[in-house]
């Protein structure tokens, strides 16, 4: 997904969300007794501001794109040079974007799995999967790092810092 397209989708979603919030805020009453502001006042202001500024950003992106087209510079290339990535960083390639999506999917799967196997086992498996499938490390290295990270985290967070990490339905490596 190009940066410009992503920016427009984000702005569209935010504008729609802001508008929905503005309309919904009337249900909470903008003003209360004696002219005091009601519980709907702040959501109204925030929603309206969000919708307006998101539309402004959207308009700005279209204007910029039109100007760059007129100047003969492709928008996404111009955006990258304008500093889409923080200083000193290389821009993301489409291959790395696929990897990011895979990392997000695996993380979400681990989150769901944690309710069954417990937090540390699920996220230990995540480390293993990331190293094995995303980073293409050797299986023994991925399993080894995953196991050491799981047991190390259990020792530090559960035993020493006493963070009650959930053991899930199987009750594995959970805290008190």
């Amino acid at each position: 997904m190009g940066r410009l397209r992503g920016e427009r989708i984000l702005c569209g979603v935010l504008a729609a969300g802001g508008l929905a919030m503005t309309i919904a805020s009337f249900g909470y009453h903008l003003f209360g007794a004696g002219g005091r502001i009601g519980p709907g006042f702040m959501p109204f202001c925030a929603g309206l501001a969000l919708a307006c500024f998101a539309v402004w950003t959207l308009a700005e992106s279209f204007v910029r794109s039109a100007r760059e087209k007129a100047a003969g510079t492709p928008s996404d290339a111009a955006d990258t040079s304008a500093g889409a990535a923080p200083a000193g960083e290389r821009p993301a390639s489409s291959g790395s974007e696929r990897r990011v999506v895979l990392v997000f999917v695996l993380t979400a799967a681990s989150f769901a799995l944690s309710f069954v196997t417990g937090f540390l086992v699920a996220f230990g498996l995540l480390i293993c999967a990331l190293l094995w499938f995303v980073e293409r490390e050797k299986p023994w290295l991925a399993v080894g790092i995953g196991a050491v990270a799981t047991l190390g985290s259990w020792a530090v967070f559960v035993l020493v810092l006493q963070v009650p990490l959930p053991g899930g339905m199987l009750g594995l490596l959970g805290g008190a």
Partner: protein
Amino acid sequence: MHIFDQVGLGFSTAFTPHNLLYCLIGVFIGTVIGMLPGLGSATGVALLLPLTLTLEPVTALIMLAGIYYGCQYGSSISSILIATPGDSASAVVTFDGYPLARAGRAGQALATSAIASFVSGTLTIIPLMTLAPLFASMALHFGPPEMFALMLLGMASVVGFDAKSRAKGLTMAAFGLALATIGIDAQSGVARFTFGQVSLTGGIGFLAVVIGVFAIAEVMGQVGKGGAAPIRTRVRDMVISRAELRQIGGSIGRGGVAGFLLGILPGAGATLASFFAYDIERRASKHPERFGTGMLQGVAGPEAANNAAANASFVPTLTLGIPGSGTTAVLLGAFLIFGLQPGPLFLSQQPKLAWGLLASFYIGNVFLVLLNLPLAPMFASVLRLRYGLLYPLILLLSFVGAFAIENRMWGVGLALVFGAVGYLMRNTGSPRRR
């Protein structure tokens, strides 16, 4: 209370073995986090904040502040050795730091960076300690209109943190404001936008959002990019001559003054200060054409400026409750989580904590120079670790932190969702910090 009594109280608080240990842990972790490309001080503070919740507030804040200024030191190491700044404030150090390293003078560049950071970081605590009470006494006369104006200034400064586009800055500020309205209204007790979910009645947790938007999104942003091979350096390479020290003395002075003055302005931040200091150095030099090819002044000035600005950003944070930078915005959240309200009365109501925190800056800077001068080559070895092996562990730490906020999986889910939102914001150039 006289200022000397306050400073004395601060040092007696900071000099307990417990606080010294956590200060050392903070600056050590900060140095390591600062070196890791893309993480930065705001992420570091956000990542570790949930794990400090069981500590005494003063100890936790000393450790978190240590992470902040530890990052300023650490990020220079990666700027110099792999031309990849750990934090945006050190981006300018790559201009001359990396050419110095390529020319076989990495040790001298690292030593210059550590000395400039130490001198500036230590000396600017004096104006910080004197100006903070002045600011606070002035702010005591504020009434509702001034407080409203202050809130607006706070919002405006948040907009200015990172905005290449003001519209984007304003959109993100409004987005944050909209998120803050979710949950029970403190005035009326009405539950807003909770959709019948009990988890939402308490609102969207600040820390889970911060972990998602900063830590997880940054990690995702780095996935698949790999890294440059770091240049090796040894302790014996870090010796700099007296002539070189004289060369960088003026740069440290100019950078420190410029950094402090800019850092005191809410929203200006260390990044602006470091670029400004670099420009001053170039203009002040007899050989401006050599800048960018490996000048020690090009490292010393910006380094002094970003450390001075980091210290100065605590003036508006502690005395007005307005974050001076992206990281102090996260730290401000930490104060609130500990039940503390920075503002005009903070120094008088919490003298032990406030002055203890300020005094810990001296101690932290001493720890940092002691760690960084002899151990910079050892720290630099972290850079040889492939990011592909590192980020799964950072993700695990982020999720443990998100869980530890309220000891429930809700925080983990929120961090994951806001990680995706933050990644989208990052890739669309929407401001999140600085």
